């Protein structure tokens, strides 16, 4: 608990608790707003050449949600990876961990405190981002029920949980923050490719979460493979977390 409190205080003092939520909100509402004003923007820039027929589609709320999620999947994930890359690796690299880990702290607590603090920051920021996006969708594009909003947050939150856990896993293994960030992103990209290539085999790959969320919004019901994929994501995260603790325990902490 002491370790967790310290993480929370640290993230408050280094202003992560201010800027991460703000940036997540910006990411979430950027597309809904700019797409809404697209016709005016194109006109202001000089309009379309004569004769071009350019029809801007009217977006359905579900499609706009997907735009927000697409931002989280790229820039959002990038930011999460960058803020988490040094959480353990940086402490080991600088040598602070030498003072902390000679105290009788358990390695399980050390890893889980880091993980929990990072996860709460990520999920709360994501929640506020989606809340802002939901608000704009409702006033600009049409109704999206609050229930659906909660389901989106829940299921997509699992994907972000997986990303955070993956970063913690590499943090426990390697003490170079940049390499941690690289490997986390690299792993996510490889997973995406593999999911695409073997799509008929890997129906429940975590990378499919946002596709299934879209399906859920279109069909107005929770598809069974969304539940399956969610379970797989949770399981993978738990396995990664346990593996992180295991690796960290075996490590020689002074090296």
């Amino acid at each position, binding site marked *: 608990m002491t370790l967790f409190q310290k993480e929370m205080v640290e993230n408050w003092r280094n202003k992560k608790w201010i800027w991460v939520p703000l940036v997540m909100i910006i990411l979430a509402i950027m597309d809904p707003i700019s797409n809404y004003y697209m016709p005016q923007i194109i006109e202001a820039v000089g309009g379309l050449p004569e004769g071009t027929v350019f029809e801007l589609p009217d977006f359905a709320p579900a499609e706009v949600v997907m735009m927000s999620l697409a931002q989280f999947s790229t820039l959002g994930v990038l*930011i999460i990876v960058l803020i988490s890359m040094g959480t353990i690796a940086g402490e080991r690299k600088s040598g602070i961990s030498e003072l902390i880990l000679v105290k009788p702290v358990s390695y399980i607590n050390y890893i889980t405190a880091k993980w929990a603090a990072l996860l709460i920051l990520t999920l709360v920021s994501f929640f506020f981002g989606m809340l802002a996006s939901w608000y704009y969708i409702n006033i600009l594009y049409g109704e999206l029920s609050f229930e659906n909003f909660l389901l989106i947050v829940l299921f997509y939150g699992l994907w972000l949980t997986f990303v955070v856990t993956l970063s913690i896993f590499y943090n426990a293994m390697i003490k170079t923050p940049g390499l941690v960030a690289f490997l986390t992103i690299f792993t996510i990209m490889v997973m995406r490719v593999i999911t695409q290539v073997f799509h008929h085999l890997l129906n429940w790959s975590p990378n499919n979460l946002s596709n299934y969320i879209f399906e859920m919004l279109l069909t107005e019901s929770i598809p069974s493979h969304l539940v399956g994929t969610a379970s797989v994501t949770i399981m993978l995260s738990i396995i990664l977390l346990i593996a992180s603790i295991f690796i960290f325990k075996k490590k020689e902490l002074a090296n």
Partner: protein
Amino acid sequence: MQELMESINWAIIAPFIMIQFILLIVAIIDLVKADETRGSKWMWVFIIVFINIVGPVLYFIFGRRRD
């Protein structure tokens, strides 16, 4: 341009601009109070002020000295 300005509902855009502004202010305050940054402080002032949104984020991720 005139038309664009008129057609925009400012109540919708205002929160977006506010958030950017808060982000910029928080980054500047942090920068001023920081003992040390990676790279010169003046460079970061320019980055934060002139690169919209991305500037403050870059500062928070790469400019702050952690530990």
